[in-house]
């Protein structure tokens, strides 16, 4: 089975250089990638993740609003009885990493993350990987 990943932009943050690069990276690594496009709500991301039956959700947030938006996505997934693991990429200060992990985020990828690590982490999180 091929690993299926939803990459998502949530909120009003239009910075999509990172998410576009990551989507292409994961496709090049042989995964099936669904990209939500910009300006999604936490609820729509959760709904798409469940409908598309993905193995992992990757959120890209560069506006600094991660502490507000990420827990909302996790709540929305719980509302749908989903335990799909969520990873977050973006500019995330060290002190926020712990808060996100405590909230239930499976992994975070800050500036300088290696592409190999991102691929390996997502494959490890995927039950099909």
């Amino acid at each position: 089975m091929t690993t299926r990943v939803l990459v998502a932009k949530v909120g009003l943050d239009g910075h999509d250089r990172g998410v576009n690069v990551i989507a292409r990276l994961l496709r090049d690594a042989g995964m099936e990638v669904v990209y939500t496009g910009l300006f999604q709500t936490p609820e729509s991301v959760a709904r798409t993740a469940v409908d598309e039956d993905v193995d992992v959700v990757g959120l890209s947030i560069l506006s600094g609003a991660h502490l507000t938006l990420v827990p909302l996505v996790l709540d929305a997934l719980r509302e749908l009885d989903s335990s799909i693991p969520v990873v977050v990429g973006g500019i995330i200060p060290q002190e926020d990493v712990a808060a996100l992990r405590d909230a239930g985020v499976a992994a975070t990828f800050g500036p300088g993350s290696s592409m190999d690590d991102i691929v390996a982490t997502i494959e490890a999180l995927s039950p099909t990987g």
Partner: protein
Amino acid sequence: MTAEAFDKRSDHRGVNVDHRNSRKKWQAAYEGTTAASTRATTQSGSPLEPVYGPDDAEFPGQFPYTRGIHPAMYRSRLWTMRMFAGFGTAPDTNERFREIIGAGGTGISTAYDMPTLLGIDSDDVRARGEVGRCGVAIDTIDDVADLYANIDLAAITTSMTINAPAAAIFAMFVANAEDHGVDRARLGGTLQNDILKEYQAQHEYVFPPRPSLRLVRDTVVFATREMPRWHPLSVSGYHIREAGSTAAQEVAFTLANGFAYVELARRAGLAVDSYAPKMSFFFNAHIDFFEEVAKYRCARRLWATWMRDFYGALDERSWQLRFHAQTAGVSLTAQQPDNNHARTAIEALAAVLGGAQSLHTNSFDEAWSLPSSDAARIALRTQQVIAYETNVTQVADPLGGSWFVESLTDQLQREVGALLEELLELGNGSMLEGCLAAIDNGWFEDHITDAAYAHERAVQRGERLVVGVNAFVDDAPAPAPANQMSGDGDARQLERLSKVRRERDGDAVARTLEDLRGDALDPEVNLMPGLMAASRARASVGEIMNTLADVVGRYHVRAR
């Protein structure tokens, strides 16, 4: 053959200019500038000419302006040190503006928060977590009044970095200034208002492209007729480059958008020479030093050539590409953030040696957050060191004539020219239609993403070194620079907006919005008067944008 006849043999594809007697012509033009009586020497006392070059070469201030748009360049006038700022509520940002002016900044530039940039009110559920975070929150004309309080709008030029809701924000700005006794004709500044690049790179769009272009048309027509000191359009490559494009793509897409707006204004019945002199540009100042200098030189040359030979502009001011530059946000690293001071200084120097009219220098902490007040001051001081200590301002186009820089300029010109021809062909001879078609089929985004991906792969493989990222890495990760922003901007803005909603005349809001809807239904009507009336009734940005969206719809990108 006369010079005129010689020039006419050229077309926009090849610059063919007679530079005979160019030094004499330059000398005559230079004598007419405020720089004529200046004398300059090196630090050690050797005399410096205002420009160097053979007698029959292109000189600054001469078509096609490869060497700069003014004969004396910075000897007659330094660039404007225009620092971009905005966070929290309007009073928060007003305080920062007044600090910048007090520290010797000569222009101000407003950064809006994400909800404002997308035409969403602060109390909209979609704005949660974003109010006042990446810029200042503006909901109504009351916020605009507080933003510019105690700043003389007739004396300082203001810049507004906003696009999809640009017409609404501009209407609030003009209405507020007039309500405070400053006539619109005295207002000087720039509205970014470049909606095409939003669909290509930055993605802060609201309406579909064609109705958005109608708003651009209305602001350009309004400013051209009534605001002689205003620049209603800043065609921006900055965001295209930040999204990952190459230097050639940055110039090509930006010039193509510029030509598209020229066609738009022509369709609206404006003569090209009535508004083209008011157009300005905004480019990135990235880390590849010589490529950036060559980029600005090539952009000026191509703009001049196409404007004269393809669009038939006769006024030389229509040929002259004026630009603002900002150092590259994407070149800043979150790792070892102190190194960013060096990057910003080098990038700023490239913009100055490339002939920028205006410059913003990023702060070293911006990979992490909006700049702290101290960091923003150091960034401004970096410009002041270049302007007043290095002596680079004394000689125009100091890299002109370098075999390397001239070759790089020509090479970029060929690459950019090929991309422009491709877009023109896509539009069957119309750059406006070419840009719209290339937005629709994802051509721009494919080019940009390919380049961004190639860059990222090169960094990952170590083929491109970034200090502190894949070379000279510290073992312990550096802590993020302290973010000195107050964290309660969100709550305070909600209170401000709630107060306006309680106190305003609801009937007047409803009536002016209904009038605006009526105006929007007729594509021939200019929306600016209706937008100003709604602004004065204290309608919010979100209410205005929703009214227009009811008529023209919203833009959604197709899943790709």
